[in-house]
């Protein structure tokens, strides 16, 4: 069973993914004259950087969807509608704060 709470910052695979992708979005691995290879008027190296950037966006999507899970939504009623007539924000956990300070 998957653990109930999961944070990206505690996942090794997330760190590895980010480090690898960060390395790939820095253009250190091209020859100095790589700009002479063009595809539809765009240097090939720039397209590779863009592809790596898209890879980062996709990895971020994967991380958000699978590695980030807390029970906030179950604990705090997330379906509430605009606060017409609400006296103060106390219903949603403000009580916990006040207890802590007392």
């Amino acid at each position, binding site marked *: 069973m998957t653990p109930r*709470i999961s*944070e*990206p*910052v505690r996942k090794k695979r*997330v760190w590895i993914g*980010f480090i690898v992708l*960060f390395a790939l*979005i*820095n*253009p*250190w691995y*091209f020859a*100095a004259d*790589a*700009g*002479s290879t*063009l595809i*539809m*008027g*765009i*240097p090939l*190296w*720039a397209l590779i*950087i*863009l592809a*790596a*950037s*898209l890879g*980062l*966006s996709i990895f*971020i*999507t994967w*991380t*958000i*969807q699978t590695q*980030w899970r*807390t*029970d*906030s*939504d179950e*604990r*705090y009623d*997330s*379906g*509430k*509608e*605009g*606060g*017409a*007539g*609400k*006296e*103060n*924000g106390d219903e*949603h*956990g*403000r009580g*916990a*704060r006040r207890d*802590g300070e007392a």
Partner: protein
Amino acid sequence: MEVELAFSGWSGIFVLVLYGVLMLGVGLFAFLRNRGMRESLDEYYLGGRGLGVMVLFFTFFATQYSGNTVIGYPPTAYRMGYEYLVSVPFFIMIIMVYLFFAPRLYALGRRFSLLTPVDWIELRFRSKSVSILAAILMLYGLANYLLEQFVAIGQGVSGLTGGTIPYQVGVIFFIIIMVAYSWLGGMRSVAYTDTIQGLALLFGVFTLLIGSLYYFGGLPSAAAHMQATAPEKLNPPDGAGLTRWFSLLVLVGIGAAIYPHAVQRIFSAKSEATLKRSFIRMAYMPFLTAGVVFMVGIIGISAFPDLSTAQSEQLVGMMANALANQNAFFYWAMVLLFGGVIAAIVSTADSVLLTFSSIISNDLYGRYIRPEASEYQKVLAGKLVGLVAVAILIVIAWYPPATLYQIFVLKFEVLIQVGPAMILGLYWTRLNSRAVFAGMLAGAALAGVFTFMGYRPLGVYSGLWGLVLNLGICVIGTLLSGAGTAAREHAREVIGFRYS
């Protein structure tokens, strides 16, 4: 970033007035829909923690992309060539950095009803000195940020209307509109207007790109021009360029993610699912915004060759002028583009002002000056102090001081110094509040001194040097003498994911 658009005098005024009326209407709508709102801090500053995916997404979008993205980035791409492609991944980096703290901060925000970033720092360290220092640094950085937006509004308006509306009138008009809708609807107004402003901006940049591709020739002709005149603009960056690329990724990624108004938006999400979906969309926006304006700048290289640095700053204005002369569609599209640019500046300014007021309301007035005040009084105090700050900033914007001008330049350099307390504090229970205080103070001082002296060792920005010192003091100070048992117990209680 003043851009003269001689073609759009009265039509510019028409669009700006229309835009002002629309924003006021949005404020009124938010006010009428949520009449009980002004009574509580949560409602006013966080939209009752009820922002849905679409609105939350656009409000993140509006805080990250400002008018400068459209006006300032193409000239930079024009001068640097493909090295400025870095503007695409650095916006993605912001979302990556969010993932290292937003999941936990959102959960804690819900659990403890956090309202501002300072609220979190106070909860975590229970130290008056750390909280007040963090509040002061944030207010100072935010005020300067606001000042910059005001100057940009004035220049944008006078540029768009070809000087028909003078700089001062433009600033006053938009500040009155902005304050009015913010007061009427708080965070809801700001977020709704952000949505409209974001859509206007997106429409404008896409039209600019399509027009440029159609009338000025595409990327192949730009590449041919660069090959003939400046082949280095096509090549990947060399040693120094690579360092610049790397430090921009780090600096923008960390910096923009921990801007106080960016952090506060995490608290206003309706649910974790909402926040996640907004982040996922944000991860792809750099291609549609930074990527698009980058292409516009590259096309400019062959369309308007051999501009000096000062001339190239006007690039977007020149392209818009040329497109507007083609036909009625592009004429109005370009008027809308510049309306969108000003909208984007206003939408950045309103977010900054709201966060500024919330720190006054909640963290200074509400915590130390009059804790017994009602929420209504706290909100009112934030509004009024915000108004006074705006008035002072307008005076500064009109009469820039001849000396010590740099005091008003420090923004990001100072704001980033709150990062270690905010992020390390989320995970490290041993973190010692005295080390945090010393690090924050020393980091801000170092960044300030380096900026005043124009000193940039190794070509790395002063803010980053301050951050390195700040982090060093936090980490070494804590390793030498960790937080006491009681403080650690409290930290564990606060940051642990135990909800019992």
